[in-house]
């Protein structure tokens, strides 16, 4: 085994006893610059000579494009180009999972807001005029908005070539559900519905594409995966990938939305730049953003589950229908995630789960924090409360009887061999919230204001699902003056992966202060690090940083041991000094060690490639290895419902997280609080409304309401169970998405407790709550 073996290096730091920087509230390096406007976002790079791009959008949910007439638009002084599908030099195909999606509509439009053409002009106003002057003739087609209707109809096809409106199917089959229900003493069956959610990142989508003299293009853009963005843009342009460079500056929020839309915005700006030979800038207005970009999927979930008198789950039978909208996009991956997580974090011996992603003529679904999981956990956790009630058990006691632990098998029959801290998290947070007393006491409320307390427990697989390849990488180099530069493809979109976690990892390993570490993030100049999604930026993204820095440390430890005449094992790196642990008087200054390394031919740069080991998964039966590990989250919510107005107030929230090592408690807290409030918004108020033609009628922040500072509950200090993950940096799993996932379940269970009636659909707006109260009387 070489000392640079990545497994050995991960293992060494997983078990490190004493950490200096990791695990501490280290202030992130980008905070001050952001506060004073010195951190640049995409629009801040706008060039004076840039052309402006505006988009011509489809006014119809489903129509054939008969003809375009762009002459009037081109006659406007200042309009430089009008671009339609036929002008695309490369391939007009940007479907993520299935090849079903053009960048610019071709032949047909499939939702209101689909991009049909681009107008490129000297300034915004002229581009607007150009958009109004482009004449597109359509032949309207019959359309489908309801996924339940769409999946059963073949007379109207949204994608003719597929021959059905079902874009994708998934399945998990474990054991025998009939036998499981036969063994059950209580059975509960319900239909749950969840709705679309918009990300509302405060920075709308933007990209600036700059052609250079050698036929290459640089795109500065707000995206979550620079390498994928490059691959899509180069494919559209018909250029080799190496001719396109992506720079992702600070991103004003992503939440998954810019994982899907970012590459498309970049490709459109690049197209304009390529065809005009001038820098071109595209930024969406808020209305365009909401109309065009993919949303959290709406779901219909039919869920039947059974348990025996002893409080053990026996079977689940689940049908998941995702409204995928006009295109499949990441729908198949989102559906897989929902399908394999359908049980919730519990042992279930018999399971049948079927998933369907169904096309409709609405804005399509895509990545959003939680990725298919919040909807299914809402259904699963509602069922758990109902079963507990029928069994006469407390909801948490019932959960604890079935909770996953080390050695448990999941519904894909994957045995969990380590890192399963959910049971401990649940017990601890139940105690911290005084659960059992409140659960009894609030049941007695009878007045206008009714209190309720509810729990949501969730699990979330780390990395891509099944055998889908996943890896980490980074390039780290030590400069002559001893400062360190690291390159990663991970972006900074608020979560702080490259500006806190990665900085801390390097600082820890090389014993230099965070101020000496510069992480260059979000660039295709870095090795492909995978996307900044799936809660992987700090954890999986951090593996590459750790391995590269650890390799450098091993080399320098060897060199220092030779200089100091001690063993490499006793070498320590701390406060800019390298010394012997046994005798701290034997030391060499970091700067001098670097000089020595340069003069003695020790390489001071390293990459940290790591390919995540995975097992086999059978897609037909949905059995096998689903994820290398899971992160777990419990949220207990306390609510007060005004039964006269239907207004729900979330008063208190208790979070508990089992996500391995906490690299930076303050930053993790920030993620949990932000995700909890985004989840609370989803559960209570956020609601995208479609009219009868599939048009979003509330594409603005007055009518699409997100939480303000007034809506924030008292969020308690999180409970951390550090169930280390053997392939994570220092044992870290992922955090970013976690607190959102159980939030709808937690709030819905609390409201159900307060009202003594079951919530089965969201959001819990006052209208819906009043309806619920009326129908339960």
């Amino acid at each position: 085994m070489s000392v640079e073996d990545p497994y050995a290096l991960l293992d060494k730091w997983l078990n490190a006893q004493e950490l200096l920087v990791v695990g501490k509230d280290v202030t992130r390096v980008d905070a001050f610059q952001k506060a004073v406007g010195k951190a640049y976002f995409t629009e801040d790079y706008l060039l004076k000579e840039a052309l402006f791009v505006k988009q011509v959008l489809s006014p119809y949910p489903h129509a054939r494009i008969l003809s375009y007439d762009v002459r009037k638009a081109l006659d406007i002084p200042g309009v430089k180009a009008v671009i339609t599908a036929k002008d695309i030099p490369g391939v007009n195909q940007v479907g993520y999972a299935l090849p079903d999606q053009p960048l610019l509509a071709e032949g047909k439009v499939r939702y209101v807001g689909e991009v049909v053409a681009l107008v490129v002009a000297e300034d915004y106003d002229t581009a607007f005029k150009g958009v109004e002057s482009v004449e597109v003739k359509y032949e309207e087609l019959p359309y489908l908005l309801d996924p339940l209707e769409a999946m059963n109809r073949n007379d109207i096809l949204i994608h003719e070539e597929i021959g059905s409106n079902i874009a994708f199917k998934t399945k998990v089959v474990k054991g025998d559900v009939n036998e499981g229900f036969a063994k059950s003493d209580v059975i509960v069956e319900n239909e749950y519905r969840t709705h679309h959610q918009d990300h509302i990142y405060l920075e709308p989508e933007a990209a600036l594409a700059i052609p250079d003299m050698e036929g290459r293009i640089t795109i500065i853009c707000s995206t979550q995966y620079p390498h994928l963005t490059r691959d899509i843009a180069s494919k559209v342009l018909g250029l080799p990938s190496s001719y396109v460079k992506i720079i992702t500056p600070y991103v004003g929020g992503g939440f998954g939305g810019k994982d899907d839309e970012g590459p498309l915005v970049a490709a459109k700006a690049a197209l304009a730049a390529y065809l005009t030979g001038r820098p071109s800038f595209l930024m969406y207005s808020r209305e365009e953003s909401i109309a065009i970009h993919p949303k959290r999927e709406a779901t219909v979930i039919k869920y039947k589950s059974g348990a025996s008198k002893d409080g053990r789950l026996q079977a689940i039978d689940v049908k998941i229908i995702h409204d995928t909208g006009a295109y499949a996009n990441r729908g198949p991956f989102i559906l897989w995630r929902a399908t394999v997580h359908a049980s919730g974090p519990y042992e279930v011996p018999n399971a049948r789960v079927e998933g369907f992603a169904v096309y409709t003529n609405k804005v399509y679904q895509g990545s959003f924090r939680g990725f298919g999981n919040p909807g299914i956990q809402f259904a699963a956790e509602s069922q758990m409360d109902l079963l507990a009630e029928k069994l006469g058990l407390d909801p948490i006691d019932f959960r604890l009887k079935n909770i996953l632990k080390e050695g448990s098998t999941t519904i894909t029959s994957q045995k969990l061999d380590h890192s399963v801290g959910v049971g401990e998290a649940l017990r601890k947070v139940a105690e911290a919230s005084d659960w059992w007393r409140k659960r009894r006491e609030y049941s007695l409320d009878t007045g206008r204001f009714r209190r309720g307390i509810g729990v949501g427990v969730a699990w979330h697989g780390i990395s891509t699902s099944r055998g889908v390849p996943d890896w980490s990488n980074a390039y780290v180099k030590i400069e002559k003056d001893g400062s360190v530069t690291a390159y990663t493809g991970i972006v900074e979109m608020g979560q702080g992966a490259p500006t806190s976690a990665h900085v801390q990892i390097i600082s820890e390993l090389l014993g230099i202060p965070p101020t000496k570490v510069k992480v260059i993030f979000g660039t295709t100049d870095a090795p492909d690090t995978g996307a900044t999604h799936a809660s992987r930026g700090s954890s999986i993204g951090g593996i590459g940083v750790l391995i590269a820095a650890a390799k450098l440390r091993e080399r320098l430890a060897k060199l220092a041991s030779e200089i100091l005449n001690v063993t490499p094992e006793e070498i320590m790196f701390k406060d800019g000094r390298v010394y012997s642990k046994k005798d701290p008087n034997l030391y060499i200054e970091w700067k001098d060690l670097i000089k020595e390394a340069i003069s003695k031919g020790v390489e001071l740069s390293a990459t940290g490639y790591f390919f995540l080991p995975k097992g086999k998964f059978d897609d037909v039966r949905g059995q096998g290895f689903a994820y290398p590990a899971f992160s777990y989250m419990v949220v207990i919510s306390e609510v007060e419902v005004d039964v006269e107005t239907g207004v729900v107030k979330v008063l208190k929230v208790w979070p508990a997280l089992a996500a391995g090592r906490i690299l930076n408690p303050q930053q993790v807290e920030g993620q949990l609080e932000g995700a909890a409030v985004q989840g609370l918004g989803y559960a209570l108020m956020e609601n995208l409304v479609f009219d009868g033609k599939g048009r979003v009628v509330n594409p603005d922040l007055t009518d699409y309401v997100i939480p303000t500072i007034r809506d924030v509950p008292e969020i308690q200090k999180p409970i951390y169970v550090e169930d280390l993950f053997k392939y994570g940096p220092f044992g870290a799993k992922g955090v970013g998405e976690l607190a959102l996932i159980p939030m709808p379940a937690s709030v819905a269970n609390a409201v159900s407790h307060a009202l003594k009636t079951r919530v089965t659909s969201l959001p819990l707006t006052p209208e819906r709550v009043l309806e619920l109260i009326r129908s339960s009387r």
Partner: protein
Amino acid sequence: MKVSFKLNGKNVVIDVNPNEVLLDTLRLKLGVKSVKRGCERGECGVCTVLMNGKPVYSCMVLTPQADGAEIETVEYLQGKEEVKALIDSFVKHGAIQCGYCTPGFIVTAYALIKAKQNGLTKEDVIKGLEGNLCRCTGYKKILEAVINALNQLET
């Protein structure tokens, strides 16, 4: 048309279209980067600036309306004691994630402190900041940061 105003302590004379909004003038013509573009219809607060000492959404102000006014942004205000305290507190409390909303919050919080120097309650702060949206932090650390800065300034 010609418009003149004081921007961050300096006189500015600029030729604008009558329908141009202050947000565009500041961002695109005068290079003020702390003022962000979020909704362009007065809903999100990321473009907040001080106009004659009061916080306004610069996307809702026509530049000609700013004629003769004093406009201040965080680039300039960061020299003030109260703003320094606010920024320090935001940084220390982890109240900054993506940072897109941060300058708007700082400007609004500063105006709040100036308008009602003594005895700001938590409710006053909530009322003062409810016109600024943040999608990352869940607001808890923002509220803590502002209250902490207030306490610092009072002692």
